[in-house]
């Protein structure tokens, strides 16, 4: 395994995953906001919070009244936002370009087409075109992933790419769960339904959740994303899969042992869903954060270790 490729593989998929989740959030919000319901008052907050760039937005625009069109521009096109769709796919493509010999030609074409599409799309996409715009982006990412799973050799690069994707998911879901108390300021069931429905759509989990649980209950929602072992977006699933992929790496014996991942999944099994519904800091939240930080360090260390392997 060539260290440069290992690093770019990991990051290419992190950016793609981050872009996919953001595109889905934007698409779900676009559809949901057309209904006359209580989501209308919260969509700006949800978009900025989940993008994790609220502070940058306020710094760049310094506006008193937050305009949804400005937020959309910031999240889709703003070059100064490293986590806009445009920036994310540019970064994904840059990484893909540097490992072109390793990824399949079909994967490269999908990522490149995505980059070119964003480059030539008008930055003032009308409401009329937005649905098709998001659908195109999501289609391209899913096709890229399809080629990835369908045709790529199961070597170390494959496992690292998947680790990148899974880790990004874990961090995004964790952030979403932490943000719930901000979104759900009242317990009105209609508002709760709209927001939970939106978040399920954002994380492509609506159908899986509905198979798992009878209704849109808050605690069940949190439990699903924390502890369900079969849902591809739950923390348990993501962390277990990361650990498996680590074990599959041919150089795994030379890497730091990912015991921290097992420790985290063990801890996760006992975390109370109510923890994340508490707007205040508490011991379980703090421990989860520390564990995830340690996983991050392990991953970073592993990638640097790979440079010297």
């Amino acid at each position, binding site marked *: 395994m060539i260290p440069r490729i290992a690093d770019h593989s990991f990051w290419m998929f992190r950016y793609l995953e981050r872009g996919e989740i953001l595109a889905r959030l934007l698409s779900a919000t*676009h*559809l*949901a906001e*057309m*209904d*006359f*319901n209580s989501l209308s008052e919260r969509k700006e907050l949800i978009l900025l919070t989940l993008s994790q760039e609220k502070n940058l937005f306020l710094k760049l625009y310094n506006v008193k009244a937050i305009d949804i069109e400005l937020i959309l521009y910031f999240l889709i096109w703003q070059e100064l936002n490293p986590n806009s769709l445009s920036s994310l796919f540019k970064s994904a493509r840059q990484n893909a370009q540097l490992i072109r010999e390793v990824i399949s030609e079909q994967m490269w074409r999908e990522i490149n087409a995505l980059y070119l599409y964003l480059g030539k799309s008008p930055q003032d996409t*009308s*409401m*009329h075109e*937005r*649905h098709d715009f998001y659908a195109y982006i999501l289609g391209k990412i899913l096709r890229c992933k399809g080629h990835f799973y369908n045709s790529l050799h199961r070597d170390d690069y494959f496992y690292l790419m998947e680790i990148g994707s899974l880790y990004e998911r874990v961090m995004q879901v964790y952030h979403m769960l932490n943000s719930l108390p901000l979104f759900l300021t009242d317990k009105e069931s209609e508002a709760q*339904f*709209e927001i939970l*429905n939106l978040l399920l759509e954002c994380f492509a989990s609506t*159908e899986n*959740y*509905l*198979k*798992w*649980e*009878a*209704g*849109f209950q808050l605690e069940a929602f949190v439990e699903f994303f924390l502890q369900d072992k079969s849902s591809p977006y739950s923390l348990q699933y993501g962390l277990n899969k990361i650990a498996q992929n680590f074990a599959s790496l041919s150089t795994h014996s030379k890497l730091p042992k990912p015991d921290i991942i097992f420790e985290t999944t063990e801890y996760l099994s006992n975390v109370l869903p109510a923890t994340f519904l508490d707007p205040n800091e508490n011991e379980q939240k703090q421990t989860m954060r520390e564990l995830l930080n340690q996983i991050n360090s392990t991953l970073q260390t592993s990638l640097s270790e790979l440079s010297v392997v």
Partner: protein
Amino acid sequence: MTSFFTEQIHLGRGLFKDYELQPGTFDEFFEAEENIFLQKIIHYFEKYSLERFMPLHEKAFQLFRQRGITFNVYKEQCGQEKIFPFDLLPRPIVYDQWLTIQKGLAQRILALNAFLQDIYGEQKILKDKVLDRELVLSAKGYLPKLQGITPPGGVYIHVSGIDLIRDGSSFAVLEDNLKVPSGVSYVLENRRITKQLFPEIFAQVPVLGINDYPAQLKKALYALLPESYEDPLLVLLTPGPYNSAYYEHLYLAKRMGCPLVRNQELVVENGKVYLKTLSGLKRVHMIYRRTDDEYLDPTVFKPDSCLGVPGLIDAYRRGNVVLANALGNGVADDKAIYPFVPQIIRYFLGEDPILPQIETYSCADPSSREQILANLSSYVIKIVNQSGGNGILIGEQATRQQLKEMGERIKANPRDYIAQPLKQLSTCPTLHNGKICPRRIDFRPFIIYGQTPWVLPGGLTRVALLKDSYIVNSCQGGGSKDTWVLGPI
């Protein structure tokens, strides 16, 4: 009726440039109540030319096709799949009107449910001679084998679709569908398509959301289960992919997160229902069944039914499985009972009906029958236990031979027929053969009843695509429109 918009009709702009009102009918766009949101809708669509609008229609068709949103037509060879014709121009309902409809529907369902409880219970309404015993108990949908069985929570009508029309400015009930009403999946998909194609108008006009229908249905059904059940299983029972509404079964099963099962996948053992899975039998607690009553259990009803589950009624009788809708609802939506629903409402609820209904005459009544037979061409004749527009004769449009044959059928089986005066259904601008023209519509809102009735803020507007046609049913060439219940001003 003249209205605020009449002047603008004569001016005619853009898409409605050549639009002409149909004489004697009420137009939902141009003769409706003064409402700022309705005005915005008209102005929005006015900006389209036919040249710009037609490709959107084609796009909608392609979207339906890509997503496989179809229905099967039995008359065609082997139940051919067809795209449900969809007209892009929505049907608006203003908020104040909606509030009345909502209250009226909830009242109607409560009363009809109480009627079913009573008919399968003490039959007080018959003992008090409010309704004729023979008329009720001779209904094809009355199932005497279920006498004495009360479903959980006393709820019979978990899901209903009540057909409404507008003759003039008020809504009236045309028909009740209490057995296995269909159409809600098209309501949800129609909305998805119009949001995709006309997002800008939703930013200008508040349209009440309908997305939570599957969640509401699931919640209502689960609310009826005893608390003692751990991890109860709900399944959706479908007759299979050749059923006309199979797409809807599939859609609802996915959106509710419950298994879609066929009869051969269920088995009854020791009075309990189980789902056959690869890891063994799994207990089923509740079945949202889309199979008609008479096909459900060959050991009780039709012995040659290939769609049933032997022993299912026994499990139901023992209270070991909840069936939604309950069995035997057909007695309440029998067209011969329909004329008496206002009395049913007064009897069980002590209230006057909020929603009026069409005056209806039963051919079973000798004096009505005489009047009907003498004036067949003035009535719409319906068979009491048919649906889908089948068996309807519109006297005004019938030939002499058809009228004669109908007269003979009525004389042979008078209980099986009712007559109603022909009502001018309201019209709505509709694209047909490259032109925008008025076409007749009706409206089917859906009501879910778990602990209390919940009315979906929208519904299926069905449109008769042919000029001068009154038949809106999909299997007879009708189409549908998105229904926009507008928010409060």
